[in-house]
């Protein structure tokens, strides 16, 4: 109900010019993966989607942030229908097991209809550069080889709402959806992550 006006407001704030290099209306299940530099990132992708797809596209977000306060909980649960995961802070066996469980949950939550929005860098970049990808994207892609992997390059959102700021400065931004990527059956992890990152960065020049 509130999703459509909210998406319009988000587009206004982010002043986003949206470019599609894949079919915007495809019903294929997708994993949108973007570069992360701002709290606005997933909203920017989410609001750029056609309304029909938006209701089946769920952002993956950190539980610690989105379960704070009633408003965030409502937005995450009922508006964005986010898949909330626990962020692993420490290393070791336990954290690795938790990470595996999180990826398994993402794959399960996709079911046979949903798409996901993920940020494979795991954290927001401070300077707008695209950092190295964590292995979550690889494992998710292995669990859901049927899904299209769509790189999404977000430009300027770190200037609109940088890390550590509460209020946005409404500059113009750009959201570029790239052509789909697939994972090779025997694909090497590092090779895949590097390829996915390159596909994302390359969208900057389009």
């Amino acid at each position, binding site marked *: 109900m509130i999703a459509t006006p909210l998406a319009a407001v988000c587009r206004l704030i982010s*002043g986003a010019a949206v470019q599609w290099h894949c079919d915007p209306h495809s019903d294929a299940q997708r994993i949108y993966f973007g570069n992360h530099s701002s709290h606005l990132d997933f909203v920017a992708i989410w609001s750029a989607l056609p309304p029909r797809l938006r209701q089946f596209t769920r952002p993956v977000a950190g539980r610690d942030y989105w379960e704070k306060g009633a408003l965030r909980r409502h937005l995450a649960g009922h508006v964005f229908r986010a898949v909330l995961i626990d962020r692993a802070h420490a290393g070791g066996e336990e954290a690795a097991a938790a990470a595996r469980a999180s990826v398994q949950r993402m794959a399960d939550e996709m079911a046979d209809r949903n798409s996901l929005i993920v940020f494979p860098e795991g954290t927001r970049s401070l300077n707008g550069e695209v950092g190295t990808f964590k292995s979550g994207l690889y494992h998710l892609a292995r669990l859901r080889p049927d899904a299209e992997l769509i790189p999404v390059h977000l430009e300027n959102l770190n200037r609109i709402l940088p890390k550590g700021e509460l209020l946005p400065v409404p*500059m113009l931004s750009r959201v570029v959806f790239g052509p789909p990527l697939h994972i090779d059956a025997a694909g090497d992890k590092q090779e895949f992550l590097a390829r996915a990152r390159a596909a994302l960065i390359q969208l900057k020049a389009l």
Partner: protein
Amino acid sequence: MTLFQDTALLSLVAGVLALLVFASIAGWILSRRIATGPGRATVDNINARIRAWWVMAILFVIGVATGTIGSIVLFGLISFLALREFVTLAPTRHGDHRALFWCFFVVTPLQYYLIWIEWYGLFSILIPVWVSIFLAIRTALAGDTESFLERSATNQWAMMICVYFVSYTPALLMLRIPGYEHQNAKLMFFLVLVVQLSDVLQYIWGKSIGRHPVAPSISPNKTWEGLAGGVACATAIGAGIWWATPFSPIQAAVIAFVLTIMGFAGGLIMSAIKRDRGVKDYGALIQGHGGVLDRIDSLCFAAPVFFHLTRFFYAP
């Protein structure tokens, strides 16, 4: 004063309406004649521009017809959108974030509020003095010295061009001209009409007979032929609508001439900035034109000159 009580203002609106109808018909004929080939892209662009002109003209007339508040809101929004386009191209860093937030959400509304309460004294110095000082301090406090001079200078200029200069258009409503009380909306109309028509006419003359660029390193499209033709025609039109202004026909011609030259200079300056930043347009909000700033570049530099000439000579 409302739109419907002033026959001169109604005549101006009717004239603009007639011009747009004429342009739409001409555009339609062009699109029938030139269906293919390299000229087609130009024709499509011209028609997109004409459609956008309809929207802009309607918004402007609504702004004028709803009185002072309508004009202030309209130009306040134009400033906001222009500032947004300008700052996007500026080399800002995280250290500018809070200063810029002030610019968008406090200074811009305040500048237009000062027009509403007709506080000319503060209106005229808010941005050049107070904001200029404030921005420098706020950016310095953020502590980032990386290209500090470039960043603070760019932000100050963004405020001058996008907010201060643009706000001079509705500021015309503050002027008290003896014998012309409550009619200042027509001054706004005169300014916008002359400047924008000068742009259009320079474009038409340039496309038709333009050969020699004025500043080839900035824009190959701005030619001496276009400039001369556009300035001459727009000056004549400005003189022709003297009856809507407090000026005599000769005075209206001189002022219109100055406005067209300032408009041309504004377009040139804003193109030089685009060249510097490596972009073609400031934005994509207005079909066929580019961004808001691409459309109002000439107005930015003509409005303050028009205001101060009128104030100096006509509003003692």
